[in-house]
């Protein structure tokens, strides 16, 4: 079991974390992409995940509410960018408008690599700087996020509607 963090190897603010699991790749893929499994492990011991909804496709929203042991709830909304079963999952966290200061947003890629009987899980988190945001908006990325956010807004409205119907 390994866990490597590297914040200085790149010119961009990046964190790399790797972990080897004693499990076949298909099972690891299932555990990181099926909400009923993600809700079990996300956040670690003592944390619960009252909401975990994953629209597993590029442009799809991952809407997540994590509850800390002290009861504090954190809403994390992301957009999937790449979904290549069973080897690569890429998602971008969206800025939380309700938190000030909001945590930095990041582009996260998880790759799963077969290593004998083990599966290597590797996360690369690229953190946004203002320069990246400027660049990404020039490249049309902001538009894509916009589409995702609209879909999310519609989704939240329907959830709200369902609640009101209760």
């Amino acid at each position, binding site marked *: 079991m390994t866990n490597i963090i590297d914040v200085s190897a790149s010119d961009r603010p990046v964190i790399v974390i790797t972990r080897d699991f004693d499990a076949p790749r298909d*099972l690891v893929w299932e555990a990181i992409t099926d909400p009923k499994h993600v809700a079990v492990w996300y956040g*670690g011991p003592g944390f619960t995940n009252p909401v975990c909804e994953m629209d597993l496709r590029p442009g799809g929203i991952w809407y997540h509410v994590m509850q800390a042991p002290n009861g504090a709830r954190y809403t994390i909304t992301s957009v999937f960018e790449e979904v290549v079963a069973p080897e690569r999952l890429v998602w971008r966290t969206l800025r939380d408008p309700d938190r000030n200061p909001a945590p930095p947003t990041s582009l996260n890629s998880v790759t799963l690599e077969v290593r004998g009987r083990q599966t290597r899980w590797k996360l690369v988190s690229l953190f946004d700087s203002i320069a990246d945001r400027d660049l990404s908006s020039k490249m049309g990325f902001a538009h894509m996020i916009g589409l995702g956010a609209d879909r999310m807004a519609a989704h939240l409205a329907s959830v709200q509607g369902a609640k009101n119907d209760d």
Partner: protein
Amino acid sequence: MREPRIADIVLNHIVNNLLVKYVTNDRLSPVFFALADPTRRGILGRLATGDATVNELAEPYDMSVAAISKHLKLLEAAGLVSHSRQSQWRPRHLEAARLREVVDWLEQYRRFWDRSLDRLSEHLQTLQQRAQRKKRGQKGRAP
């Protein structure tokens, strides 16, 4: 007087554009941006050993003093470096507490994944044991 290099001109442009665009309530983004460059990390490393003037900071680099000044402006905008107004030579000072904030945040992020992956590892074991038992159970029931 040295001819300004293309790199200096580009850096000048970036600094001038970015300084006005900094969002004041977003405390970490400017710091992440400031840390994303090897020269700026080098400057911070030098300042960690003690205060230094712009000329002293420029010494190890194949860069104009003006270019180093631009890097310093970014570091100052991010709150990582400060200087006293009184002194003529204005030695730069590392704001270690500000850097600490970022390191703390990264540490928190790392811990989050550490805990999550521990739990994921356990969960994968449980899933595999469950599958094994199911398999054995089916074999046992087979005629």
